[in-house]
């Protein structure tokens, strides 16, 4: 008995020592020991450049062995193209790159990203502080293939001065949209002096909430079909077209659409625009009036979706590069950097320890416009994950823009889109 217990103690002790050793070993395994130069690819527009410089400088101060070159690669779509081309070539890969959340499924499925779980474990990275929606949005197949970086959601920016002067009531429900459109626009003799709003048609993310809140499944549970051809979806699309046909709103589409839409808002040519919260500071600094944020109207539900980007490490990098990449990635997704971003741009705090505490209140005092977002934190859902999502979005965007701008039958267009989407989903 005694002998046994002594032996078992010894065994236990040995195990503990071994475990400790292994733990130390695995943490060490991700250390950076030699000077290294790495690239960080991002899609952050020029207005964020000074902030990026500051963040990178701070990182390099804390990690003197790592030299970071932050490279702007264009839009999320451009960045995606570059990343895949580099992945195929197996060279010129960045150590860390941002990615728009819908790409994560495709990347996860085809092994573009390094699985981060071992790194998280070894370096004791605090994953639990992210909201659960964010964790889902940044993982694939139960594995953490990326981490939440800059998070935003759909929002309506409006001209507060105009709203006050003309007593314009912002729409809380889909049903109120009609009267809002009439009241907020100025149309005379078929010519629009001022639009009620502008709907971005160049990315389906902006308008898909209208469909989701009306109870339409963009991808059904089977993962192989869509409900976009159903009567409910056609009804939503018809409304959107009706507002554009009445010239209350316009459907922003085409290569320069985004910049023209912003310019229209800045110049007061439209009462509001539907855009992403991340651009709050851009609007606030460029507009000569007070900019308000209004949570998009609801119907059956009043939810919005997570937008913005996650950070990932391309799998085909060497281990040294990945280690340096992990240092950068964990620094960038950390709380301090996140709050810096939230303060200086329109991106949202990602940490529960901010949003659910007094820190969040302090943040709101600084940026009261974000109340619209904070009031709805529980209604911001992860986006649909599907490997064919980019194909789906392209088809939908194109068919909807075509029928709204060029004219035609909405039902037919949505049905055609749904057939093509079904095919893409099943492929």
């Amino acid at each position, binding site marked *: 008995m005694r002998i046994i217990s002594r032996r078992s103690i010894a065994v236990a002790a040995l195990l503990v020592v071994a475990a400790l050793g292994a733990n130390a070993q695995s943490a060490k395994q991700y250390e950076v020991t030699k000077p290294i130069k790495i690239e960080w690819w991002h899609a952050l527009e020029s207005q964020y450049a000074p902030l990026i410089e500051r963040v990178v400088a701070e990182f390099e101060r804390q990690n003197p062995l790592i030299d970071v070159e932050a490279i702007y690669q264009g839009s999320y779509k451009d960045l995606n193209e570059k990343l895949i*081309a580099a992945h195929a070539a197996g060279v010129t890969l960045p150590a860390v790159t941002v990615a728009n959340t819908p790409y994560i499924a495709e990347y996860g499925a*085809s092994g573009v990203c390094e699985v981060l779980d071992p790194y998280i474990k070894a370096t004791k990275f605090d994953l639990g502080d992210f909201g659960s929606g964010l964790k889902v949005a940044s993982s694939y197949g139960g594995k953490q293939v990326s981490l939440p970086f800059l998070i935003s959601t759909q929002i309506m920016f409006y001209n507060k001065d105009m709203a006050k002067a003309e007593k314009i009531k912002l729409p809380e429900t889909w049903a109120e949209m009609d009267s809002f459109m009439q009241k907020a626009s100025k149309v005379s003799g078929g010519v629009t002096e001022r639009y009620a709003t502008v709907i971005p048609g160049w990315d389906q993310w902006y308008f898909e909430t209208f469909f989701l809140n009306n109870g339409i499944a963009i991808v059904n549970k089977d993962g192989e079909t869509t409900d976009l051809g159903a009567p409910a979806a056609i009804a939503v699309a018809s409304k959107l077209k009706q507002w554009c046909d009445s010239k209350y709103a316009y459907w922003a589409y*085409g*290569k*320069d*659409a985004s910049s023209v839409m912003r310019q229209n808002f800045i110049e007061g040519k439209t009462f509001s625009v539907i855009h992403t919260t991340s651009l709050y500071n851009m609007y606030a600094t460029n507009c000569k009036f007070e900019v308000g944020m209004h949570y998009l109207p609801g119907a059956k539900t009043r939810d919005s979706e997570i937008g913005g980007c996650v950070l990932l490490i391309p799998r085909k990098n060497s281990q040294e590069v990945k280690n340096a990449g992990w240092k950068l990635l964990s620094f960038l997704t950390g709380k301090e950097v996140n709050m810096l971003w939230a303060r200086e741009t329109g991106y949202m705090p990602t940490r529960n320890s901010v949003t659910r505490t007094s820190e969040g209140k302090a943040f709101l005092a600084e940026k009261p416009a974000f109340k619209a977002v904070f009031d709805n934190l529980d209604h911001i859902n992860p986006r649909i994950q599907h490997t064919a999502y980019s194909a789906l979005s392209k088809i939908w965007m194109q068919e909807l823009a*075509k029928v709204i*701008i*060029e004219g035609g039958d909405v039902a037919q267009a949505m049905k055609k889109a749904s057939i093509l989407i079904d095919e893409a989903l099943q492929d």
Partner: protein
Amino acid sequence: MRERDTAVDAARRRASPRVRRERFKDFLCVAPALAFFAVFVYYPLVDLFRIGFTNWNLIRDEYKYVGFKNYKWLFKGSGLDTWLASLKVTFSYTFWEIVITLVGGILLAALFNREGKAFAAMRSIVFMPKYIAISTSAIVFMWILNDQYGFLNYVLGAFGVGPVAWLNSERTALTSVLILTGWRVVGYGMMIYLSAMKGISKDYYEAAELDGAGALKRFRHITLPLLSPTTLFLFVTTFIASMKVFQSIDVMTAGGPYESTNVMVYWIYDLAFVQFRVDRAAVVASVFFVILLAFTAATMKISNKSVHYDS
């Protein structure tokens, strides 16, 4: 035939080692170029056809052979509509670029065909756009064609027209791209015609004038026929170049809106590097190559019969 072969063989056999060495050195002169074409032109062409039979997508490392699956997608599946639309856009772009180069070129050649420094300078100016990178001029044209802030819509607005959605409507997008094309190529067509017109002997015109032929008649019955080799040259080179149009599309429209400017090369690029369907891209490129080859061969053949050569 046989006899000749043996004669050549005999000659070859008789060649001394020195002559053979010389021949080998002559061959060495062309060898680098030939090796280059083998590696960077012919091998990729063969490889292209091979990839068409795989299911390679740019993201995944491994792939397998899938037979005619990609061809079925193109000719019988969902690729067909896009393919036909793309062919239509490519040919209509090509048609208009050829019309602008040939008709615009010859009209400007007639207009600018005058001695003197002023006209020489004006000719150079009209010719110059050809040398400005398409991508750069495309950005300038996008600014002029911008539907809300562009200069063109302002001018049209002054006449009560518009605003036209130039690059953002499927009705006008290709026209917008062709406006840039026209600006670039019309001076080139003019220059080629002018240099050919200089080569036409004055005797023809003098003889015609004595016969009482007016300027228009002289142009139609002397200048035009004598320019036919030049027209053929312009036709063939413009055809080949414009079928490959990419830059202006990439910068100005990205194939849109709604694929209304989705020309063939842009579509191949989009399939390979945007949709990552390298297999499908390879099939579209293979078929495109066959079309290019067939059309060029046909043009050459027809033109050999009908062109008037001035001996």
